[in-house]
């Protein structure tokens, strides 16, 4: 997929929106709502994992944009759930650990009240296909 600058349908299903720092770094915001509940009063782990992936893809789109773009495919995702997601707004942000020519390693965290107390973290590996270089005449 070409990492979208706008959020895909699944992100709308989750109900998350995107905010950007002045230099374009994305942060995702997920309001607590019925559509993302697991057991009563708590976020579904799958919704948290989905939010982490949306954050990772948005960050990769930002990183690739500066290097001429590219298509990405998830290879592996590992999610650690550290705290129950309560009935508060959840935020998520990602960090590109390495952006290679063919592989990107990304980390993402989700938190509620305190960024230093994440509710979940994920480590992702993405396959990258960059556009063929255009040969100059």
């Amino acid at each position: 997929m070409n990492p979208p600058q706008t959020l895909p349908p699944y992100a709308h299903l989750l109900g998350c929106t995107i905010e950007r720092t002045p230099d374009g770094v994305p942060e995702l915001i997920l309001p607590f709502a019925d559509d993302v509940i697991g057991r009563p009063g708590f976020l579904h782990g799958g919704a948290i994992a989905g939010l982490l992936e949306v954050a990772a893809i948005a960050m990769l789109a930002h990183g690739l944009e500066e290097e001429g773009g590219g298509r990405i495919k998830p290879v592996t995702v590992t999610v650690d759930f550290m705290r129950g997601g309560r009935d508060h707004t959840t935020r998520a942000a990602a960090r590109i650990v390495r952006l290679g020519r063919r592989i990107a390693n990304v980390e993402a965290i989700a938190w509620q009240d305190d960024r230093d107390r994440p509710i979940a973290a994920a480590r992702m590996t993405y396959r990258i296909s960059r556009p063929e270089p255009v040969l100059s005449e």
Partner: protein
Amino acid sequence: MRFDIDRFAAAGGFGGHGGRLGMRYHAHGPDWAELALPYDPALVGDPESGVIASGPIITIMDMATSLAVWLKRGRFVAHATLDLRVDYLRPATPGATVIGRGECYRVTHSIAFVRGQAHDGNPDDPVAHVTGTFMTTGLRDTRQP
């Protein structure tokens, strides 16, 4: 509390996030459960190809492996997912229902070890493979902020 999978199956669907995704009961055995996730354009992660996002795959596998733990233990015990790793073997075919099969292969007093696969029609050609662990939380969730 005894875990009554038949009552769960009769109810068919889920509430909350699973319900929003359209997740349904599919089948089960003594230590495994299968859930179905019909294709829905709202699940798409890549509008260009129509392939669903990976988040819904994680959700169905989290729930299928969770059910497998309760089946293996023979009772419902509140638990929390500790970690879940998903290997995406190939994109799910647009339009196809995804079947997620979770299996619990080992339980200790407080930890359950699970694995599973998701496919979109042919179990021998899976779209994803998962491994994970759950921990019992008792009546109260003690892992709170």
